[in-house]
């Protein structure tokens, strides 16, 4: 009997140890690093981070990117999963094509978009060939912040919408068809069915997808670096810069702590905003 009660814990132990060792310990170390200064413990590193010339830009860029790309991705993924429900033939192929970006590494995706958008890239070539532009255009420089932002937004949108889509498709499949049929019998139009039945029933999936995507969007790095380089600083690329270029691990740790706090806060906001109402679930 004793072995029986211990067994579940023994089986859980390796994963627990793994997480503690490779997640919790580094987290504590990072926090310690962020607060340790040459004169002891203090907030000196944070002051240095705030004084960083690119700090405000990186905060603005990070939040701008997250606030634009995540809602767009949610809308697109909702639309895609709704459309997919009405497909009878070739559903699997469409699903497969839509999820291709999931299988491509961040950096590769960034390089693909760089190849398309750079001043000698595919887009420039095509626009030149059809006569829309008379010579190569630069979109990815600090002189064209709007175009640069749009380029990174597009790249991030292309790369990471699939994960939202996959979560929502799984959620949609869990909703019994009878609910929508009942709604249509009781007079609901297609929009009312979506708004009043499907969307509320999809809320747990939307919550999951949003948390996953928001956290990952705050950590956006490889795509941003590939397409924007130093012209588009974000929080994680600043951490990278301080860690490897400036070799100041303490300030890098401060950036890491900031990203963690922002991600946690965003998760909390989404959890609260999309929580089930009292009594709705048992």
């Amino acid at each position, binding site marked *: 009997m004793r072995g029986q009660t211990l067994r579940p814990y023994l089986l859980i132990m390796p994963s627990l140890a793994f997480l503690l060792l490779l997640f919790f310990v580094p987290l504590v170390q990072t926090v310690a690093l962020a607060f340790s200064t040459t004169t002891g413990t203090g907030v000196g590193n944070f002051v240095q981070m705030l004084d960083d010339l690119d700090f405000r830009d990186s905060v603005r860029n990070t939040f701008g990117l997250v606030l634009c790309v995540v809602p767009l991705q949610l809308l697109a993924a909702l639309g895609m999963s709704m459309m997919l429900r009405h497909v009878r033939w070739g559903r699997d192929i469409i699903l497969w094509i839509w999820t291709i970006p999931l299988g491509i590494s961040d950096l590769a995706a960034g390089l693909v978009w760089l190849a398309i958008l750079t001043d000698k890239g595919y887009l420039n070539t095509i626009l030149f060939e059809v006569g829309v532009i008379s010579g190569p255009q630069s979109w990815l420089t600090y002189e064209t912040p709007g175009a640069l932002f749009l380029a990174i937004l597009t790249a991030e949108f292309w790369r990471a919408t699939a994960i939202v889509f996959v979560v929502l498709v799984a959620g949609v499949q869990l909703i*019994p068809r*009878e*609910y929508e*049929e*009942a*709604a*249509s*019998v*009781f*007079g*609901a*139009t297609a929009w*009312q069915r979506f708004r*009043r*039945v499907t969307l*509320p*029933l999809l*809320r747990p999936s939307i919550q999951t997808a949003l948390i996953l995507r928001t956290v990952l969007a705050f950590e956006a790095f490889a795509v941003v670096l590939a397409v924007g380089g130093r012209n588009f600083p974000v929080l994680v690329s600043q951490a990278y810069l301080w860690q490897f270029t400036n070799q100041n691990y303490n300030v890098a740790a401060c950036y890491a702590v900031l990203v963690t706090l922002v991600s946690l806060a965003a998760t909390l906001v989404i959890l609260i905003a999309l929580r089930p109402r009292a*009594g*709705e*679930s*048992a």
Partner: protein
Amino acid sequence: MADIRIESVTKYYGSQAALRGVSLDVHNGEFVALLGPSGCGKTTLLRAVAGLDRQTNGRIEIGGRDVSDLPPRSRGLAMVFQNYAVFPHLRVRDNIAFGLLMTGTAKDRIERQVARAAALMHIEALLDRYPVQLSGGQRQRVAVARALAVEPAVLLMDEPLSNLDALLRLEMRTELKAVLASARTTTLYVTHDQTEAMGLADRIAIMHEGRIEQIGSPLEIYRQPKSIFVGGFIGNPPMNFLRLPVSGSVVRLGTLILNPPAGINGPVMLGIRPEDLEVAETGAGFAFRVHVPEPLGPHILLTGDVEGQSMRVAVAPDRVMQPGDVVMLRPNTARLSWMNPDTGLALENS
């Protein structure tokens, strides 16, 4: 208030026929049950009337209006689903109000209708609960209340009681009948449970392999089955069929001389309900050998054989039967059914 007119409706899934030309008129205020074994097409027909599936061919009219190509929401009907389909994210109150809300009904009217429907189904106390907090029977009541609240011209029900336990089903059946009778709503009701169909319906349409095999009042269907299938499907236990030769325009069974419809040559199928047989102490009868006696309370169910053909008989519980006993039986000759053994169809008494 409206009638339903179904004209030569067919439904194919690929090359698979689910409905092979069904025509049915449900009169204004009438309760018609579609009854049949699973796979007979009854739910397919109901869904075609609802507009949830489009028929391959044929025409459906509701209240004189051709609705064949209209979406469900434009057909002016309400439906109770087998799994209730009570929206889990809405309180009972909002579930019942759903249909009225979708059609833009005024708020005070919605409130009145919800209160009325809730009172009819005795769920006033549950209005502020969510469906997860309800039992199966309560959810069923919400589903019916939601349908009644819109005061539909036509009410469709798809096996609404099949998920309830036996006692609750009996209770809901009685209640449904009372509520629907007072509302006089035209109702099309799908079930595989014959007791339910017999108890509730004004008329029953027996469906078999995508066709309506027979339509009539419950007693008509029970007393005068138009085919071996109907006789064998309706009744519990079902009708007995004996294959007997006709000689000289009469059929001999033991010492009985029975008169099948005129002009028959060759064998006939004689249909006798188990309860239309009695033990013949004296006079003409036929010998029945008991294999298994089952005392069921109201009667004893005897399973046995007559001249090698199996038969079930329900006799009064006032005698003790043993396996191997032979008793003389006599049928109620007014209640016999005669069938053509080749076509499986009833022979008309002319």
